[in-house]
């Protein structure tokens, strides 16, 4: 099962990828991804959090970790019994033209390719196309119609990709559904996230995908900007909001079972 997507996802996409990685690994599925920033790393991380096996298909030689910041992640993948896989000889440095070939390999290794967030022209869409060439199934996670990061996934859905609302959708497609029916996680209600409590009027005005800046929030709430800035920081300290792209988004909190 491959999870792919944008290298610069929204907090929403990152949270979804991590959660899918976790639940699929827990169900015994091997999570394949590309060790890249963003969705890839989140999927690997999720699988590792479940103590699962995950495979990183690399666009460089297996001895060249790219991006370099993912050295620790690569170590963790190996330590958990996973694998770093590459079709390139040792010492191959990151080259732009190698990555589409890597994407093809990733699709070949997986039974299903799930695209979490992909803007138009994203590399994840190349993986999806490769999967179709190889007669593998492609599934996609929907997002906000306002988000540029969901344009690619929505066009996949329109073209017939399977809809992913939770890990169970994927497990069903893998014909593993029966085995997890008892799993209390496998109900849509338990996608795994809890919205932060509505103690504060600000939160109801924030989206989890599109960033709003303090000025926009202040205008909606008719509050002085200084006060809104202070309250946003308080929410940030509590982990209820995050900064994203020059504004603020609602942070998706992991459910209790993730603690």
């Amino acid at each position, binding site marked *: 099962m491959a999870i792919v997507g944008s*290298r*610069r996802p929204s907090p929403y996409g990152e949270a979804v990828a991590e959660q899918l990685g976790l639940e699929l690994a827990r169900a015994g599925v091997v999570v394949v991804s590309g060790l890249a*920033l*963003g969705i890839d790393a989140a999927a690997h991380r999720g699988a590792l959090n479940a103590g699962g096996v995950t495979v990183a298909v690399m666009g460089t030689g297996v001895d060249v970790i790219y*991006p370099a910041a993912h050295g620790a992640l690569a170590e963790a993948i190996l330590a958990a019994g996973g694998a770093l896989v590459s079709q390139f000889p040792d010492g191959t440095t990151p080259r732009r033209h190698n990555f589409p070939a890597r994407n093809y390999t990733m699709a070949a290794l997986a039974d299903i390719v799930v695209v979490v967030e992909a*803007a*138009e022209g994203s590399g994840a869409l190349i993986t999806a196309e490769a999967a179709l060439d190889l007669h593998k199934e492609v599934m996609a996670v929907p997002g906000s119609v*306002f988000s*540029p990061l969901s344009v690619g996934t929505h066009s996949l859905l329109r073209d017939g990709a399977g809809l992913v609302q939770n890990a169970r959708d994927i497990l069903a497609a893998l014909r593993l559904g029966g085995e997890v029916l008892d799993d209390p996680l496998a109900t849509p209600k338990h996608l795994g996230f809890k919205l932060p409590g509505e103690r504060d009027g600000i939160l109801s005005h924030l989206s989890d995908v*599109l*960033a709003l*800046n*303090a*000025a926009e929030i*202040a*205008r909606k709430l008719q509050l002085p*900007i*200084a*006060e809104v*800035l*202070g*309250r*946003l*920081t*308080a929410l940030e*300290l509590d982990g209820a909001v995050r*900064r*994203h*792209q*020059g*504004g603020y988004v609602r942070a998706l909190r992991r459910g209790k079972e993730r603690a």
Partner: protein
Amino acid sequence: MLVGLAATTVKEARERVRSAIRNSGLEFPTTRLTVNLAPAEMRKEGTALDLPMAVAIALARAGKAAPPRSAFLGELALDGSIRHVDGVLVAARGLWTLGYERVFVPAVDAPEAALVDGLEVIPCASLIAVVNHLLGVQPISPAARGDLDSAPPAAIDHDLAEVHGQEEAKRALEVAAAGGHHLLMSGPPGAGKTMLARCLPGILPPLELAEALEVAQVRSLLGELPREGPLDWARPFRAPHHGVSMAGLIGGGSGLAQPGEISRAHHGVLFLDELAEFQTPVLQALRQPLEAGRVGITRSGGSVTYPARFTLVAATNPCPCGWAGDGVRGCRCTPAAIDTYQRRLSGPLLDRIDLQVSVRRVHLEMLASEGRGEPSVSVRDRVVAARSRQHERQGCLNAQLKPARLRQLAGLAPEPRRALERWGAQRGITARGFHRAWRVARTSADLDGSEQIEEHHILEALGFRLQDVAA
């Protein structure tokens, strides 16, 4: 004969002085004549020494001594008329502090020298007029004292009321103005960063007399003072292009260093657009003046220290193409390119900027529908009130408070302290960053008219720390 370490411009004075004396109808001695420039170990430069040399020769001829505690400045033309020299205001103030009571300056530069309170200024049109004055033949009346008190209310060139939306950035400007904090704006092209920066001088109080004199001194050195009304009460606004050289920004040049953009922005605003495009060494060189409020430069001609207490307003795009985070246009930069771009800005310079704010593009429909914002004049009233609170309490602006005085003057109650410490623990900020947020909170409280820093002041200050987010 001319002795005493004279530069080329001074050596040339020999010809000018000789011609000027002859063409003024005075007699130039035919015997051997020695002019000694003392102290001899100091290199003399510039044409302002023409007049004193000519006067000395003429008076020696007449067998008279120059009046006591008097100084002469001016360049001679061959016909004996006296021409403008740069830096008269600086020289006049320096002479006044050295105990001189009277200066003879070129007539065109007299209004400049007359700004020095108490100094008698004799405007000199020609060499013969000066000699006649000194011999008591035809006295010159001193220049009228400069008009120092009539500070006209500085006109506001760019009004905040014309900026639509952008309340977050406007608030950051207000805090920057009130506490003397430096500001970084990050946002895509066309978001209005330049317009916002240009509004800052308008919400700062007009210059005070001492400040206006310092601003005029820098301009005097550069020969940029307007003849009529040399004193300008408006705060300087300097926006050097990102291609600016080290010498252009910090000061430099051959011989004795000339003031750079940071000194021209003294008591005003230095706006650096496209901060990441500036050469790294140039940005590094900003660090010392940012801390000290002045800059020391050493060149072959000697060392000088110029004032450079400015408010830095920097603007940057969030990524190389500029569109990261823009809702409408997508960014085409790779994450690695964005990382490299932002890393150019990080580190010590960013650590000295108290306020950071994201600026986003305002939608066109909002430009049309939104009412006018708060005018600069009313923002300035709050800024002035906040600044006078600071001056009463501590004699300087919050941005200049050293950590020890900050602890003593702006103690934190347990609740705000806890918020600050929680943030520090979560984001791993440096001690310097910790104190910066504290100072900004002090300013936020001053704008509120509150003697105590409350939790919400700290929280607002932390909201202006973007660089912690990545951590």
